[in-house]
């Protein structure tokens, strides 16, 4: 019998707030962090969800007077701070530190600073702020990184290597990623509209999120029931037409959770609002018999925050379980995928117990994790 693993502390730093509470209130209020920007980073105007420097610097100044941290490092440190402080636990070698990102401090390359652009340098900088003793573990698996990091933390705790893991995820909107998504012609010319008929692509965003993953049930918000991360083995820059890897990932997670698909109360899907991604997800959820389950993408609020997205959306998903609230999928109007999915149109109060988080990304990767709200349900 494998030991149970839980999510206890949670936090996030986003354009919609610097705490879970502030973020959740804004989501329930239907407020989006996406704005129009026009600057030298790309030739045309674009939409994205940006963390405001002034507020970030003011909040960070309360924690450190050092001016040597990058924007991403400040966001990651602020995301972790309340969780580390609250846990009051030993940060020795039985405590893992996981960092999830796709591009980290990639803007350091603009000034030719290769060392600063190294992901392990970023992880060590954040680890040293708190004094983590174990070797930092960086998860860099494209757009599934954030949710995969939870799965990795759970597996490492089950393997006996660690008792707990602090997990942080973050990515920024940079000239590097903006120009790249532009070159793919994957950028939306309006705030993104996941699953909608008139969706035209991705809106990029920036965020950091953090959780504590632990075998200690005493302060748990949710239990991690099962997970899977299966490759499509189909294409490196486009999703499988059949949703194969996503189907296999969800099946693997449900099997480990020992939970039939119909018990899932709600799905926080990937929903990047590219034509191919959303179509692939709709096909996969229909193959899994999950097409009637309430589903949303949070990309309409936050944009696609790359390596942060899976963890950020998990934090919000677990808060939704706690508050028994379904959040409307921002940007959705008319269904625009060939097989129907039950996109949440309006906020709703409803008892929620089981939640499925999914993500898919370049390289054909997919991750699914099933969570159960912590508590007693009369069984």
């Amino acid at each position, binding site marked *: 019998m*494998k030991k149970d693993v839980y999510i206890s502390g949670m936090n996030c730093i986003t354009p919609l707030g610097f705490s879970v509470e502030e973020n959740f209130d804004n989501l329930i209020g239907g407020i989006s962090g996406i704005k129009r920007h026009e600057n*030298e980073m790309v030739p045309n105007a674009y939409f994205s969800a940006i963390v405001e420097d002034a507020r970030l610097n003011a909040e960070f100044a309360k924690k450190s007077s050092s001016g040597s941290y990058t924007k991403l490092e400040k966001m990651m440190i602020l995301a972790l701070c309340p969780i580390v402080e609250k846990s009051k636990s030993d940060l020795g070698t039985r405590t893992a530190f996981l960092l999830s990102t*796709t*591009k*980290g401090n*990639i803007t350091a*390359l*603009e000034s030719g600073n*290769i060392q600063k*652009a*190294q*992901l*392990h340098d970023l*992880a*060590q900088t954040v680890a040293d702020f708190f004094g983590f003793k174990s*070797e*930092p*573990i*960086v*998860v*860099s*698996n*494209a757009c599934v990184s954030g949710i*995969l990091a939870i799965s*990795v933390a759970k*597996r*490492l705790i*089950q*393997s*006996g*290597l660690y008792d707990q893991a602090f997990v942080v995820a973050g990515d920024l909107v940079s*000239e*590097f990623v903006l*120009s*790249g998504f*532009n*070159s*793919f012609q994957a950028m939306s010319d309006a705030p993104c509209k996941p699953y909608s008929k008139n969706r035209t692509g991705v809106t990029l965003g920036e965020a950091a999120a953090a959780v504590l993953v632990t075998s200690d049930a005493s302060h748990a918000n949710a239990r991690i029931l099962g997970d*899977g*991360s*299966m*490759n*499509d*083995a*189909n*294409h*490196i*820059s486009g999703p499988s037409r059949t949703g*194969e*890897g996503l189907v*296999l990932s969800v099946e*693997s997670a449900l099997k*480990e959770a020992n939970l039939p698909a119909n018990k899932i109360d709600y799905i926080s899907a990937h929903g990047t609002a590219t034509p191919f991604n959303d179509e692939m997800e709709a096909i996969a959820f229909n193959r899994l018999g999950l097409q009637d389950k309430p589903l949303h993408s949070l990309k309409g609020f936050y944009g696609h925050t790359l390596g942060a997205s899976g963890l950020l959306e998990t934090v919000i998903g677990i808060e939704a379980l706690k508050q028994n609230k379904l959040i409307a999928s921002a940007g959705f109007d008319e269904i625009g995928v060939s097989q129907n999915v039950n996109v949440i149109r309006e906020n709703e109060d409803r008892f929620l117990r089981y939640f499925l988080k999914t993500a898919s*990304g*370049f*390289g*054909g*990767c997919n991750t699914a994790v099933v969570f159960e709200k912590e508590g007693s349900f009369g069984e």
Partner: protein
Amino acid sequence: MEDTLYIKSYASIENGKISVDGKTVFESSVANVSDFLKESVRHFGIQYPKFFKMDNLSKLAFLGSELVLKDNPNPETALLFANSSSSLDTDVTYQESIADKGNYFPSPAVFVYTLPNICLGEISIRHQLKTENSFFIFGAFNPDFFIGYAENLIETGKAANVLCGWTELFKDDYKAFVYLVSSEGKKAHTKQNIESLYTN
């Protein structure tokens, strides 16, 4: 642990030398990493046109996997890879393509390789592995992590075998060490054995 695990096969690519299961199978004096990897693939008679479109990190990981998986095919093989420099080699190339606004040529074919896990997609496609795959970054090779994670994948039934790979590449510095963890084999899956194979 229920079953004893073994290192069924392993390969190293370093300093112009390629070895499989401890035996040198190819040596070259070509210093340029891209040329060396192309020369190696031709030497082994690997017919795979997609190889020539890959970035150097994917070429290195692909070749290492090829050498281990060709005699050990199993559709339930998970991929567990890591390195130190992520995709920085291609990141630098891509950054150069956008640095000068007067000579601005961001290419989607280059951008897609600015993620280190793309090499896992390439290997998965080649061997049709619809399996667990994940890419990690460490300052240096981390055998404890590889052992714990690989054992967990097999013990929880998420994979039958795990192909582990340390595939480090930046400019002309590279090292690949790829090994297959399986319930079959002769060499025990221990830290001591992994460290000794990595260093040799």
